[in-house]
């Protein structure tokens, strides 16, 4: 008789320890495979390459803060996406929400520089959150009222936001003809996050930590969080429990959009001090991976953001040191993500080769 060679069998609930072990093995395997690929392409010793990566990400104080900056952006967006995704509302529109938040912040910096930093920060904060919320509100409203597909709707809102950004870049062009906004308030630093503890990213760090704690409590211990969990699991159950699905969907997506808008504020006021169509730079999509990998747990989201930020800056370092182009570093990131995501399969299923216990 010919037996099936491979069979997939569902796994029982696994202990926490074993899950961590499987994931650790995945990371080690990923590093090994990356090592082989790197050696094959460049001929460098993989250990040196990893050392170079680490130096690239954390080698100097500036580099370390720059990695942290990237981590903060990703975390902030992922925290914003978490409640929407937990509710199974596929908010693919973080890019757009970040951009409109950024436009509003940049606008405040340009037109309201005179009102003083304290007032300026409050206004930028509130208005960017509002802009992000408005951008998310439209798809949410249509989803709640007409059950339109929010994936397409939020995605298309991104393109509107990109065009809007282009318009404002052209409007605020400085110097004329450069086709960029340039650094805003270069002389007076109005609307720039001040340096604290030697870094301009310190305020962003605090902001993200506060948001993380807030989101953790919000999702886990509040009535709103409970409603989100029920709606995400089954709308019928929510209706049965007397939860107004429309209200919860709109409220949650408003919150999600507002936090993504704040990420735009953080990007403009806390890092680049300018606005361009690449202010979001695909982070709105990367953060979706972060949120899902972390299963919406705040602390895990920060850790995964750190890993991705490390890979990003580390691999661009090896790219330049080893005279590779930028795409080589993307391959490295791809390999590592592939292994981490693939390890989930081995947590849920196991493979059986051949047939055991056949001949008795």
């Amino acid at each position, binding site marked *: *008789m*010919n*037996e*099936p060679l491979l*069979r997939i*069998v*569902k*796994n*029982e*609930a696994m202990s926490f320890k074993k899950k961590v072990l499987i994931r650790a093995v995945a990371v080690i395997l990923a590093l090994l495979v990356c090592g082989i690929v790197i050696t094959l392409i460049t001929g460098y010793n993989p250990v040196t390459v990893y050392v170079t990566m680490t130096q690239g990400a954390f080698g100097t104080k500036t580099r370390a803060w720059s990695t942290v900056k990237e981590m903060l952006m990703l975390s902030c967006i992922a925290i914003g996406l978490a409640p929407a995704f937990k509710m199974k509302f596929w908010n693919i529109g973080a890019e757009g929400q970040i951009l409109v938040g950024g436009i509003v912040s940049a606008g405040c910096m340009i037109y309201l520089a005179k009102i003083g930093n304290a007032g300026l920060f409050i206004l930028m904060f509130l208005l960017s959150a509002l802009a992000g919320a408005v951008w998310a509100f439209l798809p949410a409203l249509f989803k709640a009222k007409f059950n339109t597909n929010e994936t397409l709707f939020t995605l298309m809102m991104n393109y509107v936001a990109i065009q809007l950004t282009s318009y404002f870049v052209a409007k605020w062009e400085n110097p004329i003809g450069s086709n960029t906004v340039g650094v805003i308030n270069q002389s007076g630093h109005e609307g720039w996050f001040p340096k604290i503890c030697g870094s301009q990213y310190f305020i962003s760090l605090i902001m993200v930590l506060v948001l993380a704690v807030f989101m953790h409590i919000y999702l886990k*211990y*509040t*009535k*709103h*969080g*409970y*409603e989100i*969990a*029920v709606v995400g*699991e*089954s709308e*019928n*159950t929510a*209706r*049965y*429990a*007397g939860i*107004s699905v429309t209200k919860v969907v709109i409220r949650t997506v408003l919150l999600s959009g507002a936090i993504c808008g704040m990420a735009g504020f953080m990007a403009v006021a806390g890092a680049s001090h300018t606005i361009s169509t690449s202010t979001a730079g695909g982070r709105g999509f990367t953060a979706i991976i972060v949120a899902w990998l972390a299963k919406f747990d705040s602390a895990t989201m920060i850790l995964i953001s750190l890993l991705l930020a490390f890979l990003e800056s580390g691999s661009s370092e090896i790219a330049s040191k080893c005279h590779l182009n930028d795409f080589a570093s993307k391959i490295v990131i791809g390999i590592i993500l592939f292994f981490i995501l693939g390890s989930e399969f081995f947590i849920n299923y196991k493979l*059986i080769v051949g*047939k*055991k*216990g*056949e001949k*008795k």
Partner: protein
Amino acid sequence: MAAITFEHISKRFGSVNANSDVSFSVNKGEILALLGENGSGKTTLMNMLSGIYYPDEGRILVDDKPVSIRGPRDAYALGIGMVHQHFKLVDVFTAAENLVVGLDPDKKLDRKAIAADIKEICDKYQFDVNPDKKVYDMSVSEKQTLEIVKVLYRGANILILDEPTAVLTPQETERLFRVLRNMKQDGKTVIIITHKLHEVLSISDRVAILRKGEYIETVDTADATEEKLTELMVGKKVDLEIERPEVKDKKLRLEIRNINCINSEGVKILKDISFDVYGGEILGIAGISGNGQKELLEAIAGLEQIEEGGSIKYHAPDAKEAVEMKGMTPRHIRELGVHLSFVPEDRLGMGLVGSMGMTENMMLKDYSKGRGVFTSKKAPRELAEKIKEELEVVTPGVTTPVRRLSGGNVQKVLVGREIAASPTVLMTAYAVRGLDINTSYTIYHLLNEQKKKGVAVIYVGEDLDVLLALCDRILVLCGGQANGILDGHTADKQEVGRRMSVIVEEKDGEGHE
């Protein structure tokens, strides 16, 4: 001669042993009933025969030759065909198209030839199938017939039917059994999975019994009785008597008048329904599935949009005035002070949140009781512990997601919560569907306890024997219409079955008290 022999078959899913070391054989040309409670591994075993699963251990012999069945195609090649409990038909295809779907892709679709083949099969076994009818236009019984014809068309000599009677009226079941007997005469081997004992006794030649994944024994039907089969199935003596305490002090609770509902597809699913519900009695609702039972309960619970007109009046135990609860949301109904508990048909899709533990499920309807913006888990946790203990819910802990519990335990959690809310009206939809005998009797007992407390219990059920034994009155639904209310003590099964399929013109006084 054995058509099929199982030798030391085992199949595991994670830590669950669905089948362990099962060995027995099925004779050629017999009707074998495979009997066992839910979760005893009947379907898993048959799925290995039809190529859906592959055994972990052991081997299967067809006509005394060892075979390896790696997929449904292998099974068909061996002449094995299975009619699944959930039909595997393409809704937008016609009967004829469904017969050939998945077969030789290079062959041209010759409708005439297929129709001729269908006619031949139908004539032989007394079926009735219209080859050009679309599946979505078919009744459940027609779909089932088509499934059987499909299996025969593909040349099966061994037919497996998984709980074929669960969706049929008594009359339709009789018709199916006639067909099965015709097949047997023709030399076909039939395996029928069921847990209805009287059907086992009326149709089968032998009965193979499984319990908790293990094979117990095979008995000749001629020597079997319901009591003996139950004992073998459950592993101990079970009292099959369902108690029906006397109705004392009947009080009007719900007055339902002229309710009409249109579902999302625009079909009128409830037509002008009126009836009363009394505290202190169990009102049964009978009907072929999909005849408005679900919508009726959901309309009362405020989950289904009710058309203009009609009313649902609630009479509270201590109030003089009745309150109108038609058109209100579940939350409004609760705020009106109506203690309405509802055990819906879809336990994990409506009654409970599968990914949450018992504790968090306890707070589903009153999570808003917590202080300020926060939820409070103390009272729900205590309630969860209490239900776990009192109803003997088997779970690793009150935080284990209820999705991981077995069907019976999920239902205990749901019924436990709904009863704990001290209802005055308790509605249950298919409360014992898929539950083992012991759990079913626990549920009947709980419902009777509520009845004795003066609660108005509504019991939507599919097993007519249970409905007739448990309920004081039985409302029969047919095509979304109320087709008479019968007295549970005196009603006869044929009459209920008839009213389930044909609208009966009511003469004054008949059927009503």
